[in-house]
């Protein structure tokens, strides 16, 4: 298992190299970074000086190598706005985002999975119809809309919850629920269809023939199998979840990486934007690795090879 993880980590190296390249190109795609990084009214001398200080007068490949070496050591330059190392800024915000993502995942799984299982076992009955209707809604309504709606209803009208910020758990409820909503719908839908498939399998009949309690047949024998494809789907959603983080953190003034990204973009704080993109890409790769490991743990037919 350890060697499997090591091999998988080694395999992510080319991916990380690609990420570094893309992050580098981000600064070049829109032309000369000097225009991005300096105010429009900067003098020509200032521009020249900036170019030579930042090595922008060197050949592109040389600039890339310099950038790559620095990026690998976590040096993305200094934030133009906060005058701090860009990577440090991002890492400081990471715990808040991790907290939000974890709360979101807990909500999404603890609602989505039971909803999917119940819909599958009650197929064609009222509970199934109700859950499916809510799922449809959950998939159709964008999270920013839900977020704003949540603020109006629960923060402004009912005054049950604060409108934003980070501190105690009450401030976590609205953003996490908002972010979880689409995910709940997705997980419930996938769980339902996987359960319907698994409940038809011969081994479910075997479990019943052994005299296993019906609840145990469903929640242990069937769900343990149905969860494997659900996990795959969750893994595929990580990218979307990261996108949702940016929107949700902004709506609820959640001091995480996503909000920092938006602020940095508006402030033309390019080093920070690059650091965020890099960190998000690394998280994406790592989460996929974890999902693959879990997958192999849950399904004995998949060996660590």
């Amino acid at each position, binding site marked *: 298992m350890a060697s499997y993880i090591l091999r998988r980590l080694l395999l992510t190296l080319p991916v990380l190299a690609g990420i570094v390249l893309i992050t580098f190109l981000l600064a070049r795609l829109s032309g000369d970074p000097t225009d991005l990084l300096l105010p429009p009214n900067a003098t020509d001398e200032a521009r020249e000086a900036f170019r030579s200080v930042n090595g922008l007068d060197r050949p592109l490949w040389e600039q890339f190598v310099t950038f790559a070496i620095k990026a690998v050591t976590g040096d993305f330059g200094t934030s133009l706005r906060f005058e701090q190392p860009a990577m440090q800024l991002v890492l400081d915000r990471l715990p808040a985002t991790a907290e939000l993502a974890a709360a979101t995942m807990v909500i999404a799984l603890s609602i989505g999975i039971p909803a999917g299982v119940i819909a599958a076992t009650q197929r*064609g009955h009222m509970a199934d119809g109700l859950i499916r209707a809510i799922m449809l809604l959950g998939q159709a309504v964008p999270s920013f809309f839900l977020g704003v709606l949540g603020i109006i209803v629960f923060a402004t009208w009912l005054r049950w919850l604060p409108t934003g910020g980070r501190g105690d758990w009450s401030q976590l409820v609205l953003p996490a629920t908002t972010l979880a909503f689409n995910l709940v719908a997705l997980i419930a839908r996938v769980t339902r269809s996987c359960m319907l498939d698994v409940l038809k*399998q*011969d*081994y479910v*009949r*075997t*479990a*019943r*023939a*052994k*005299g*296993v*309690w*019906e609840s145990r047949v469903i929640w242990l*024998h069937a769900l*343990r*199998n149905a969860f*494997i494809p659900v996990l795959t789907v969750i893994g595929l959603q990580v990218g979307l979840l990261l996108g949702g983080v940016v929107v949700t953190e902004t709506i609820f003034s959640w001091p995480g990486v996503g909000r920092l990204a938006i602020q940095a973009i508006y402030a033309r704080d390019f080093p920070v934007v690059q650091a965020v993109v890099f960190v998000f890409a690394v998280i994406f790769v790592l989460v996929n690795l974890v999902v693959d490991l879990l997958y192999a743990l*849950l*399904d*004995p*037919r998949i060996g660590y090879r």
Partner: protein
Amino acid sequence: MMKASTQHEHMSAAGRDLDEAEVLRVENLAAHLHTGGGVVRAVDGVSFSLRKGETLCIVGESGCGKSMTALAILGLLPRPAGRIVSGRVVLAGVGDLAMLSAEAMRKVRGRSISMVFQEPMTSLNPVFRIGWQISEAILMHEAIGREAARARAIAMLELVGIPSPETRYDAYPHQLSGGMRQRVMIAIALACQPQVMLADEPTTALDVTIQAQILRLMNRLKTETGSSLLLITHDLGVVAQMATRVCVMYAGVIVEEADVGALFARPLHPYTRGLLAAIPTSRSGGARGKLSTIAGMVPNLARLEPGCRFAARCPDVHDRCRMAEPPLAAPEGAGEGGRGVRCWLHLSAGPVAPALEAAP
């Protein structure tokens, strides 16, 4: 003379108790499947009786309702399509299984009556260790500790002839061959020493040498554990090797019932005769080495015509066969005990008093 089912079933249905030698009696069992294409009468009034230590074979073509009969007995008809519509399934010491509550039926399954399925490759849960799957069957019914259950499961693995059972306890199903998996299924089925084991074509998916091993194993274990065996098959070779009694099933009903020797020596129903003629090394005198097949197809169980179900394929069909369905009854001048046939050719009355046990 014990005449368990056949024409006496209405009389015996009045008394709830089984004969002393009987462990399972199925009376007039009907199970329907409600599908988009209509109501499939998969089991349409089946009666038979299984005695202690006996192996009763149900034999018949694909789609005649053999599996559904077994699943109906166990209360495991496909959901939500399947339902028992009438009949009784009386198990010794328990009573009518068809009347039991879900929880009472659960307690019976795996403990008093268990089942081995046709598909060993898919019948074990792929994500659990095989030993765990055997232990679970024990823990569901007996108040013993995990360690004791584990020891019993290992003993079961040994009993069904799995080498190094201690290590194999921790194997996953995909690490075993089909034959080994079917042994595990048998271990699960016998773990609580049930009175009755149902085996639905347990060897059909296996190759010939493994088939013989599994059949021998089931024969041995049946004797050792004192269970009775209801063996479903479409293979008359298996019947000859295993059965004490045979029920021939056709289109949802039993068309002939006899001791195994009598059936092979003197098959009465034209369908049985056709089946026997269709095996290469037939023991029936009539086949004379010539291989034949039964022309035509099993009728659609959702759209049954009145009259005998075999009429359309029967070489000896008469007018009366199309008018009314014959009852399963003792043939005219039958010497052998417990023999029944569902054919006008062998019944004296003709279609005047039709279908004694046909459900309304």
